[in-house]
């Protein structure tokens, strides 16, 4: 087995800016106030994920999960250390972000697929599957700016899940989709996992992490606090307390919601 994602002492600093204009900066400098400050959003994080593993990433709000995901997806560059990946990356991160509101759904599918690294032939081959999955019917040739938010993200999802990727990143609460669409997404994600692709799954929902992942990473204020089996990780984070889990009704109905992390 080959390593799929390697983080090697990756650190990402963010600058907080207090003063924006020259006037403000000058006044602040004269008063000897701080002009800017930095903090580590991701602090010296190291781990190796093997090809085919499903790893959950958990942590409280502001612990650096999204930043780490952006380092892996290549949107951000670590300030020190490195993040290495093998193969093509796709995922349910900010789906529809590349959509241009003035272009039609059809044009956007091609553009989005191209950003994800698909060729024209590959997109054509998958186009029908994507459209069927998104289920937007005759709106396909309407500018996506006129779409409902559900349709917009369904189309984004559809492109992402049909990319032939080696690493699949998931960071989005599927709150927008209706129940049938959520079920379809779960089924598709199970399929992706079964195909032996690496899955990196960010979630707050213990139930879905338990179902999807065989390992969990926990970030605490940017640093890697825990790396190991899922159940212990959830206990480590203190999420195993059923009283806190809003969605833990024992009904079959809420199971899907829970799996998808709809408990925002």
């Amino acid at each position, binding site marked *: 087995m080959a390593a799929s994602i390697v983080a090697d002492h990756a650190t990402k600093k963010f600058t907080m800016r207090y003063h924006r204009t020259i006037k403000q900066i000058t006044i602040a400098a004269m008063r000897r106030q701080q002009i800017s400050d930095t903090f580590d959003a991701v602090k010296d994080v190291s781990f190796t994920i093997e090809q085919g593993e499903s790893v959950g990433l958990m942590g409280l709000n502001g612990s650096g999960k999204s930043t780490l995901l952006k380092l892996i997806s290549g949107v951000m560059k*670590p300030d020190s250390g490195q993040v*290495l990946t093998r193969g093509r990356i796709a995922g349910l991160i900010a789906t529809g972000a590349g959509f241009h509101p003035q272009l039609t759904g059809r044009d956007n599918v091609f553009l989005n697929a191209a950003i994800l690294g698909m060729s024209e032939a590959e997109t054509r081959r998958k186009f029908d599957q994507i459209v069927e999955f998104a289920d937007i019917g005759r709106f396909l040739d309407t500018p996506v700016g006129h779409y409902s938010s559900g349709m917009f993200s369904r189309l984004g999802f559809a492109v992402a899940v049909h990319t032939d990727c080696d690493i699949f990143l998931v960071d989005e609460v599927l709150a927008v989709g209706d129940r049938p669409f959520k079920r379809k997404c779960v089924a598709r994600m199970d399929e992706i996992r079964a*195909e032996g692709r690496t899955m990196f799954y960010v979630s707050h929902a213990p139930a879905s992490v338990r179902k999807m992942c065989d390992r969990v990473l926990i970030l605490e204020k940017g640093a890697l606090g825990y790396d190991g089996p899922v159940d212990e990780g959830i206990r480590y984070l203190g999420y195993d307390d059923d009283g806190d889990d809003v969605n833990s009704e024992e009904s079959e109905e809420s199971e899907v919601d829970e799996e998808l992390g709809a408990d925002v």
Partner: protein
Amino acid sequence: MTTHLEPARAVQLEDVPLRPSFSGGGLLDVFRRHYLLKLIVQKEIQARYQGSLLGLMWSYVQPLVRFCMYFFVIGLVLGLHKSVPNFAIHMFSAIVGVHFFTETFSSGTRSIVRNKAIVRKMAMPREMFPVASVIVSAIHTFPQLLILLVGAIAVGWQPDLQGIYAGVLGLAIITVLGTALALLFASMNVFFKDFQNIVSTLMIFTHWVVPMIYPFSKLATSGIRTTVFFGIYLANPLTISVLLLQRAFWVPSLPTCGRHAPKICLQGGDPSTIGFPHLPHHLFLLGWVMLAASFVVLVLCQVAFSRLEGRFAERL
């Protein structure tokens, strides 16, 4: 559906090396992914003219209005029509070049901020956006060149090899320099929006520092010629590009020397006989020097871009 591909894929994956996920492959990456570049260019063109009745025609309105204004004010009121034969062609060949440059520079500068929704969320070569705006500007320039050519033919332009060579060289300088500046200013504009204002301020100068509304000979025969300003004037790549474009379109349209010929004419109808003071000495050598210098600037701007792009996502 895709399942049958998987075994083959898994085998292949062993050969794929571990790579830093943040690409930073620069301009080379942009051309490697030319299919994506094509789609982005299409998107830019489509988006720019969505909901507009005249659509692409708008990119002609501005140069045309400017042309008419200069034509009447400079040509008729100040009387340059008399001293410069085919003054309209002289001016329009300069306008086309300058307009290509300013459009490249100013839309390139705003390109990354304008596409922040994508840059912030998706990994792709970020040079894609400045390069796409250079291409969009080139697409807009092409029909203007055609209009210029038709106009030049109407007043007696005849093709000559050296002229075509001059035109290509002139456009090449503008393209390379425009790309370089678009890269640099697009990346700086992410950090301080002041840069797009700086660029529009710089654009005020472009019409005056090139021989557009005045002929080069006016400068070359005046006292300025012996001063350091003449050297500075010729060190401007945009000036050289404009002169090369005038060599391509204006010079061959001049009348052949004869009994009634004005003071600038082609001896035996040969455009290559036109030299100083209507064009600078060593125009083609200067052109190549400018092109080489523009490539050096492009490399430097790419280096600067690569340094800055690591912080785009957080600063947008």
